[in-house]
C-alpha cells in the first residue's frame, strides 16, 4: 500500500521544473522532501494532487494509476494536499471547516482531539485565528477526511518555530495512525528528524534519496545534496 511516483516530469511555461522524479510513500511512514527555494518541491506536490498537470511519468495510489484523474477524484481516493500558505476557508468557523470534510461525528471528534486548544475557538471564524491555530485547523480538517496519504507543503511557513514544534508530533501521530505523509519543509533538520525517508530536490531533480536519519547524521552529505552534487 503506497503512493508511487515514477519518473514524473512537470512543465511550467517553456521548460521542465521537475525532471524524472521517482519516490514511494508507504502508509504509516513520513517521507520528507527538502531542498533550496525554487527547486520545484511545491510544483511536484501540485502535480501529484492535480493542480498542475504531469507532463509524463506515472502516479499510483495503492496500485491504481491516477495521473489522468481530476484533483477531486484523486482526493476522493484518499490523496489529500495541504497547500502552503494556510488555505483556510475564512468565512467558515472551526466547526464548519471540520464539518466540511468529516464523514461522521467520530471523524470530527478524532480530528478535534489532535488540537484540544481549538476547542475554545470552535465557533470562531477561522480568519480571526492566529497563524498557528489556522494551520491546526487546516491539518485537523484534512485528517477529518480520513486520508490515506497526506502531502503537506511548507507547514512552517510564516509560523514561529515553537508552533512548528507543536505540529510535528501531530504529524507523527497521523502517520502512526496508518496515513502516508509526504512532507515538504524548509526547516530541514526538524523535518528529517520526524521522517523515515528523505529526498533532496535541487533544480527539479533528485540529488538524494534514502533514509532520513542517514542524511541528518551526515552534514556534508546534506550540504552536497543541497548543492546538487
Amino acid at each position: 500500500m503506497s503512493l508511487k511516483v515514477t519518473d514524473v516530469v512537470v512543465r511550467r511555461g517553456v521548460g521542465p521544473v521537475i525532471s524524472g522524479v521517482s519516490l514511494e510513500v508507504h502508509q504509516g511512514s513520513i517521507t520528507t522532501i527538502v531542498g533550496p527555494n525554487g527547486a520545484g518541491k511545491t510544483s511536484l506536490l501540485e502535480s501529484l494532487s492535480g493542480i498542475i498537470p504531469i507532463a509524463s511519468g506515472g502516479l499510483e495510489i495503492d496500485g491504481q494509476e491516477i495521473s489522468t484523474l481530476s484533483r477531486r477524484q484523486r482526493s476522493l481516493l484518499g490523496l489529500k494536499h495541504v497547500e502552503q500558505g494556510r488555505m483556510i476557508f475564512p468565512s467558515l468557523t472551526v466547526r464548519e471547516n471540520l464539518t466540511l470534510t468529516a464523514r461522521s461525528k467520530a471523524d470530527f471528534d478524532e480530528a478535534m482531539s489532535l488540537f484540544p486548544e481549538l476547542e475554545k475557538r470552535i465557533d470562531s471564524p477561522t480568519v480571526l485565528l492566529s497563524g498557528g491555530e489556522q494551520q491546526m485547523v487546516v491539518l485537523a480538517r484534512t485528517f477529518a477526511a480520513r486520508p490515506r496519504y497526506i502531502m503537506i507543503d511548507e507547514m512552517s511557513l510564516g509560523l514561529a518555530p515553537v508552533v512548528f514544534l507543536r505540529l510535528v508530533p501531530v504529524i507523527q501521530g497521523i502517520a502512526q495512525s496508518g496515513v502516508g505523509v509526504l512532507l515538504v519543509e524548509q526547516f530541514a533538520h526538524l523535518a528529517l528528524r520526524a521522517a523515515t525517508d528523505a529526498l533532496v530536490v535541487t533544480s527539479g531533480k533528485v540529488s538524494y534519496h534514502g533514509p532520513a536519519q542517514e542524511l541528518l547524521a551526515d552534514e556534508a552529505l546534506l550540504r552536497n545534496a543541497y548543492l546538487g552534487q
Partner: protein
Amino acid sequence: MNIIIALAVGFSSGALYALIGVGLTLMSVLTRVINFSLVAVGVFGAYLSIRTSPLIAGASLDVQTVITVVVAVLVAALISGILGWIEATWLSEATTTARSAVTVASLLMLISLSFILFGSQPQPLRPLLIGPAFLIGDVAVTKVGVAMLVAALVVGILTWIVVNRTPLGIRLRAVSDRQTAAELLGVNVKGLQVGVWMVVGGVMGLCASIIGNTAAADATSMITLVIPGTAAALVGAFKNIPLTIVGGLVVGALQGALTAFPSTTQLRDWIPILVIVLFLLWNQRKEVWDVAR
C-alpha cells in the same frame, strides 16, 4: 399626488430590479461571475415556452399556463446550467473579469438567437398576474410589483438559510472562499457551481414569465433590465442581499419620481447608469492615484 403615483409605478420596476440584483449577487458570491446573460436566459426560457402552446391546446387555460411557466423555468435553468458548466469546466481558474466577459458573449449569442427564432416583436406570453394588488389611496400597487418584491425577499431569505444553516451552505461558502482548496478536499465544485447557475436561471425564467406580458415585452427591452439590476447589485456591493433589494427599490423609486414631471421623464433610463457611475466613484475614493491608474 403625481409623485406618489410615480413612486408606486417605480415600486413595481424597483422590485423587479431588486430580484435581478439578488440573482446577480448570488452568482457573484457563489460562482465568482457577474452574469450579464442572467435576464437573457430567463427571457429565452419564457419565449421558448410559448412554443409548447400547440402541444397543450386541449388542456384548460390554467393547466396551459402552469405548463408554460414550468417549461420556461426548466428551459432557463437548462440554458443557464449549460453556461455554468462551460464556465466551471474551462474557466475554473480564470479571473472574475474573464468569467464575466464570457457571459457578455453568452448575452450577445442569446440576443441574436432570440432575433432569429422570435423576431423583434413582443411575444404573446400568458398573463399570470394582472391588475392591482392593493390601493394606497388612489394609487394602485400592481400584483407584478408585489410578486417581484416577494420573490426577491424569498430568494434572499432562502439563500441565507441554505448558506448559513445547512451542510450544502458550508460547501458553497468553502467554494466561494477558496475553490482549489475545496476541490483538493473532495468538494464537488463543478456540481455546486452548475447547480447555482441552474437555480438562478430558473428563477429568472419565472421572473420573465411573470413580467413578459406586462410591459414592452420584446426581448431587447427585457434583456436590458440587467442594467438596472446591476445597479441594484452594486448598491449591495455584489455581496449584501438586503442592500441589493433596497438598491433596486431606490433605483425604481428614482425612475418613478422622474416620470412625475414631463420634462424629466426621458431621463429615467439614466438613473441606473448614474447609480453605477456613482458607486464606482465611491468605491474608488480611497485608491491611490498610481494604483488606480
